[in-house]
């Protein structure tokens, strides 16, 4: 059992420093209770990956991570045969000349000893509680999604030479996506869905204060207020939570105790990463007179 109720999920996640809202806590609880994978979508830097880590921390499970990228294939996601070792084994048999038949060698080299497990298989074979994080699943090619289907729906992996390996203990699966492309219906159907968005001012202030100890309450309020004002503007890339936290750290490093217009305009580069966004922010917020 992962969490006993949505409230339990919220408290335990909070204890490890992840402040979840109602939707996040509910969905995290459900993903554990129904043993279904959880697909988390949302803009960059709102804590999608962090959620998986927090679940692992709060339940004492180990985290197995599969980082997706374009060109990821079966050999790096599921399993691979250790060719070199197999080759050595065959040569060793031949050299010793003890007349072991081909059949025996064949059976011998397709065993566990020569199998290199990759994240997906590792997560399934583990007997301890495991959180499997499949990060940035939208970056992969469509074929890899097909590969994921068997793992996500039945928690099993079929290896032609060994047969089907079924999970001894179902891992808590979290998939994250930036929605840079639509995932296939088949993957979505097998998952519970959670859209993480920018938090409201109150929650963001708590997050920033908990992540950056030593930040003055007044400055924290000013900062969160300024970030939410920035998000209201039509920017190419609105500042995320990660950027708010960075900003808070910057302010501490620069020993800025009051977020004046001058201070904002000097440190704007920490939160906004496009030139046009800078210009817009300066114009709309009248940062420079």
């Amino acid at each position, binding site marked *: 059992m992962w969490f006993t109720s949505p409230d339990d999920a919220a408290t335990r996640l909070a204890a490890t420093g992840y402040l979840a809202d109602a939707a996040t806590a509910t*969905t995290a*609880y459900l993903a554990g209770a129904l043993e279904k994978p959880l697909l988390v979508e949302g803009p960059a830097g709102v804590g999608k990956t962090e959620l998986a880590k927090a679940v692992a921390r709060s339940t004492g499970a180990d985290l197995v991570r599969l980082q997706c990228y374009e060109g990821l294939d079966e050999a790096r996601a599921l399993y691979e045969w250790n060719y070199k070792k197999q080759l050595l084994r065959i040569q060793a048999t031949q050299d010793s000349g003890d007349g072991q038949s081909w059949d025996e060698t064949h059976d011998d080299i397709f065993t566990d000893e020569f199998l290199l497990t990759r994240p997906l298989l590792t997560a399934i074979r583990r007997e301890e509680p495991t959180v499997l994080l499949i990060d940035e699943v939208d970056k992969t090619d469509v074929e890899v999604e097909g590969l994921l289907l068997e793992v996500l729906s039945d928690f099993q992996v079929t290896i032609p030479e060994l047969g089907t390996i079924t999970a001894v203990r179902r891992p808590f699966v979290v998939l994250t996506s930036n929605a840079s492309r639509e995932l296939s219906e088949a993957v979505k159907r097998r998952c519970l*869905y959670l859209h993480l968005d920018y938090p409201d001012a109150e929650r963001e202030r708590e997050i920033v204060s908990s992540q950056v100890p030593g930040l003055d309450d007044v400055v924290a309020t000013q900062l969160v207020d300024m970030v939410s004002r920035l998000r209201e503007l039509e920017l190419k890339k609105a500042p995320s939570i990660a950027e708010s936290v960075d900003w808070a750290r910057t302010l501490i490093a620069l020993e800025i105790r009051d977020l004046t217009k001058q201070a904002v305009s000097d440190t704007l580069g920490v939160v906004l990463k496009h030139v046009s966004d800078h210009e817009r922010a300066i114009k709309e917020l009248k940062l420079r007179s």
Partner: protein
Amino acid sequence: MSEHRSGSGLLDRHIAFLEALRSAGLSVSLAEDLDAIAVLSALPWDDRSIVREGYAAALVKKHGQRGTFDALFDLYFPRMIGEGATALDPDAEEADADDPGVRDNAEALQAFRDELLEALLSGDQERLQQLAAEMVARFGSMPGRGPGLSSWSAYTALQRVAPAELVEQIVRGLMGEGRTEEEADRAAAQRLGGFTRAVEADARRRIAEEKGPDHVAKVALRPTIDRLDFLQMRKSDLEEMRREIYPLARRLATRLTQEHHARRRGPLDFRRTVRASMSTGGVPLVTHHKPKRPHRNELVVLCDVSGSVANFAQFTLLLVFALRDQFQKVRAFTFIDHVHEVTHHFKPGADVVDVMADLAASTSHAALWGRTNYGRAFTRFAELHPDAIGPKTSLLILGDARSNYSDLALDTLRELASQTRHAWWLNPEHTRHWDTGDSAASRYADVVPMVECRNLTQLSDFVHDLL
């Protein structure tokens, strides 16, 4: 809650809810249906918002559809019935509730408006929700209407209370808190918009109580933003749409790159293949291929910016320019009865809001007399910008083909189209409206292939196929 007896009615309601979701365009499979049931069994039932989140996690897999889901959820699983718990509670502040006569008079109206102003100023969501319900109950009822007509109206309530008149006071209040005028304007508009939506939702809830949710779900729901017609947009939709453009362009670009990569293998590179085979004893285990040169088109966009179709033209232009690195070169011209080049407004990395404003301002250059005249526009274009068209260009014409019964200059257009590699016409009107009134759709369609393009989904599909 592990079993659903047919007697409880919950299962029926659940199925009706799913039906409504499906007819609103969400693809809910049987597997997700079962998941939702499992979710309902696993959740505690004391908090409505938790049930809603759990339901959504199992059923809604696209963020854009969440709004539709929430609206339908409110219909099928309403927040409260009738007046809700406050009316039953004798200690509630509405002491005058026993006397229905005084609930709606000038004095009550003024008191209510003061209360509303206060809530809008503080931005307290919970309170606004309550006020919305109260407002429909007190000012939105239309008792004594004939059967078949609903007796609740958001419109009446909004007309009577007129929250829009409070804008100025809210703006002043917000500026008092140290915000700039522009920001205060935006915040006020946002809060007011939120409140208006809450009132509309509450009226829908009331009507659904009377006539059944299925009826309301069919009539009262707006399509999601990507299925909304360009020609039927409200001001708030335009803003939402503008925010959609860049993510959409990014998704399209990713999809295109991936598809191009999948087709990347060019013809066999014999030399490299043989060279690589040396390490495997002359057996060519791995074949090498020549890289495929992607050919990039030049694109010329010619768009009608007269009032009726201006939005459509702007969004298409934004999308095309967001995807500009997929083309070798993009040029854009706007016209009403005269042609004006607008390419220079689209600087790389320029701000969307500024571009839109510039475009709107430059509209006057595209008009001499201000009446749409396609024939004249095409003739002028051929005269003034002959260099824009060449054998490598694709020509894209945007407009509703309504030319005020003027000369169509079909020959000029045929001439233009024949000089280009491809030519298309995007028409934002539904196919059934083509050729009605002054529309010359099918006559132009004979010259240039015409495509119906009413919403963002159709537009992105078209742009994807174009590339």
